[in-house]
């Protein structure tokens, strides 16, 4: 039974495999196939993709996706690093408080978060009321239904991923290294920049990759906070598919997203394996 008879493996493994192949893999492959079969003619061609690349809407959406993802990645690093540092070094109670606050939004619905941000950033929201109230501005700022709102919302969604991936590397740092550095005459700032930071680089890099890729393929938050006039790639795909019924463009954007998603996973695996090996070897 430790080896598990072949037949038993099939019986237990097959249902889930069939379920996922039939309901996930085949529909995605079919979508890819459709994206490669243009309306104009028979046979496979990249025509849909060529049309897509030529369209200004697509290029704008792609640019917006990348800009948003860069901002979100930068902000999650800026926020995640101090939080992870404090969570790993603080007393166990402070640590629990920090972790609860950071992780809890994991379980929150995108609608709930987006509604919260609307209350804060909306035309009559907390921020605008405050700024108008102190007389800094006369007219409410437009803080919602634009790229800025997407960046804020996505940073909020993806921060836990960054914190957790930094936390795993920070916790793995041997505290004796710091003690050793100290006994050799290194002061706390030197220790932080020469010992701690280099050792967290793998977690930082994999965290950044993860956040960037999740941000590139996120839908709900950009859809709710970005508004129809500033679509990122995923929202554009939805618009093509659901409101414009432009199947050839929609499937092509889906193809782009699929390749992006797969590419990031492969890159992430490669990088994390490589880095972890270096850390363990060094």
């Amino acid at each position, binding site marked *: *039974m*430790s080896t*598990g008879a072949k037949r*038993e*493996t099939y019986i*237990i*493994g097959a*249902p*889930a*495999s069939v*379920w*996922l192949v039939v*309901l*996930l893999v085949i*529909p*995605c492959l*079919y*979508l890819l196939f*459709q994206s490669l079969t243009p309306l104009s003619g028979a046979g496979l061609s990249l025509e849909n993709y060529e049309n897509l690349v030529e369209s200004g809407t697509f290029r704008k959406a792609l640019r917006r996706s990348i800009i948003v993802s860069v901002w979100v990645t930068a902000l999650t690093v800026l926020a995640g690093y*101090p*939080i992870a540092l*404090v969570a790993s070094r603080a007393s166990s109670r402070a640590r629990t408080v920090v*972790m609860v*606050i*950071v*992780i*809890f*939004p*994991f*379980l*929150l*619905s*995108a*609608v*709930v978060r987006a*509604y*919260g941000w*609307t*209350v*804060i950033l909306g035309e009559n929201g907390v921020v605008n009321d405050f700024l108008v109230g102190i007389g800094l501005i006369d007219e409410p700022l437009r803080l919602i239904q634009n790229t800025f709102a997407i960046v804020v919302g996505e*940073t*909020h969604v993806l*921060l836990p991923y960054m914190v*957790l*991936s930094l936390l795993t590397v920070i916790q793995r740092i041997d505290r004796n290294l710091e003690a050793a550095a100290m006994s050799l005459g290194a*002061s*706390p*700032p030197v220790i932080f920049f020469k010992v701690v930071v280099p050792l967290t680089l793998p977690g930082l890099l994999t965290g950044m990759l993860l956040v960037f890729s999740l941000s590139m*393929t996120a*839908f709900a938050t950009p859809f*709710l906070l970005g508004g129809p006039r500033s679509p990122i790639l*995923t929202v554009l*795909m939805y618009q093509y*598919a*659901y409101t414009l019924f432009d199947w050839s463009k929609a499937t092509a954007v*889906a193809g782009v*997203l*699929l390749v992006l*998603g*797969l590419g990031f996973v492969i890159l992430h695996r490669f990088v994390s394996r490589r880095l972890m090996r270096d850390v363990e070897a060094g």
Partner: protein
Amino acid sequence: MSYQVTEKIWEKPLVELGRVFLWGSVCFWLVFVLAPVVVTVVSSFTAAEFLTFPPKGFSLRWYFRVMELDWFLTSMRTSLIVATVSTLIATVFAVMAARVLTRHRFRAKGAFEILMLSPLIIPGVVFGFAFFNVVLQFRLEGLSLLNLFVAHSVVTIPLMLRPIWSSMAGTDLSLEEAAQCLGATPWVTFWKITFPMILPGIVAGAIIAFTFSFNDITIAIFLVGPETQTLPVQLMSQIEYTPDASPAAITSIIIFFTLILFFIIDRTVGMDVFAQK
């Protein structure tokens, strides 16, 4: 003469500054994380006709109001049904997959693992579209409840698999062997020995899967029908036309239940389940 470590004059202020900066930025970001939640919950208790923050007065009127909203009650019911059924389906598949991954040796194991985790690899919105595409192809859009069950069960398999997998991997194989030596068939062994041992993992996984399904917009947006709007999708379309505090009350109710589930996870398996990749 020997070299000495000298303390530089700027070091102490720098350390202090660093500490202030560190705690300052942590506080700022924690406020950032909590802000949308706190603001929503607080403003849901307003007594005024329109949503404001800080709220004017205190009342529970919006909570009583939403209890009379038809769309809220029906979509809540739909969401609960969809989340429950899809979680049940995913549980069965995830437990079987976890068993194969922990207790069996076979050549295609790597491929099997990737297949089980593939819903995490493929962007949710692409899966939603791909599934919708097939649904249209076979003219099954009338069966939207069934479509939601099935689609959600697909995406939640890997979410459930992770905690179940790790609790099964942590269960000593010799316990199962001991039970078999004592006369328990594999079926009895599973229910008497393995199942109780992996129950915390199943509970955690089920909570995560349930929350995912209950919260989902990305996939549901393609699949809901007019009679089967899920709560998040319905809420999304209602928010635009609702300037009063009823959406705030609804989101607060959701937040409250999410908090309960969160603490169940914390008590049963700990928050580490979120850290596993």
